[in-house]
């Protein structure tokens, strides 16, 4: 059941990205290009998504378990630290370089030819580097 709902959520999420043209990096970069011919569409996409997701988050706050009986895993960190800010700056820099962020890149990877595939492979490699560094740090801390 939870596999089915996750699949449905992924399909709906991807369909939303396609309908709003966020799978088109040129459209994303037109939003990031404040000094050029600015296309505010991405802002509307985020605003619409935010409004549509808010009720679920408000309901989840008052529940212990999900409708399928799963634990409700909400982030617990509250500190705005260097990791959060530096990581987000690095992410934003990469985003501005090509116009892909993780969702749209994955929603393009099967149909978009070599370019989104190349991006996704590099992105997974970046995540693997992070995983290795974290593992090393954890081992050092334990030693």
């Amino acid at each position, binding site marked *: 059941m939870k596999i089915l709902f996750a699949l449905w959520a992924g399909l709906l999420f991807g369909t939303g990205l396609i309908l709003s043209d966020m799978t088109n990096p040129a459209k994303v970069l037109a939003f990031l290009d404040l000094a050029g011919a600015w296309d505010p569409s991405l802002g509307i996409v985020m605003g619409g998504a935010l409004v549509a997701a808010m009720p679920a988050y408000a309901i989840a706050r008052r529940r212990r378990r999900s409708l399928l009986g799963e634990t409700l895993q909400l982030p617990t960190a509250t500190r705005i630290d260097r*990791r959060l800010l*530096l*990581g987000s700056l690095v992410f934003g820099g990469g*985003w501005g370089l090509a116009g892909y962020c*993780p969702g749209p890149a994955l929603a393009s990877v099967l149909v978009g030819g070599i370019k989104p595939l190349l991006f996704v492979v590099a992105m997974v490699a970046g995540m693997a580097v992070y995983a290795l560094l974290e593992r090393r740090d954890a081992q050092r801390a334990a030693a």
Partner: protein
Amino acid sequence: MDIDWFNFTPWSALAGGLLIGLAAGGLLLFNGRVAGVSGILGGLLHPARGETGWRLAFLAGLALAPLLHLLAAPLPPAEVDAGWPALIASGLLVGIGTRYGGGCTSGHGVCGMARGSPRSLAATVAFMSAGFAVVYLLRHVFGSGP
């Protein structure tokens, strides 16, 4: 600031955004999980019991969405101006940055902000600012564009 009224698509942006938010809300209410794409993908590299299947299913849905769309209508054209070196550098930065920052456009920008998290607001301001800055530098200072 010049708004590009010709290419601005507020209605399809709103419709797509609502679907994205609905999907994020659905994943939370049914599965109890945050729809942060970088976290769902990156979490596969730190496997935990019972946490792999739903991740793969969500990511498969995301990747299969264009095929579903093709059944109804042709896909909108995607224009990728970045060359191979830029795509590789961009992917590496996005991969490392989202994991250190604990989220991307979906996890912080949509889910975290919908939750009213100050951390996610700070992250969103940071990645947006960096995106604005890099595009400004590439297009208006160095002039070549990505």
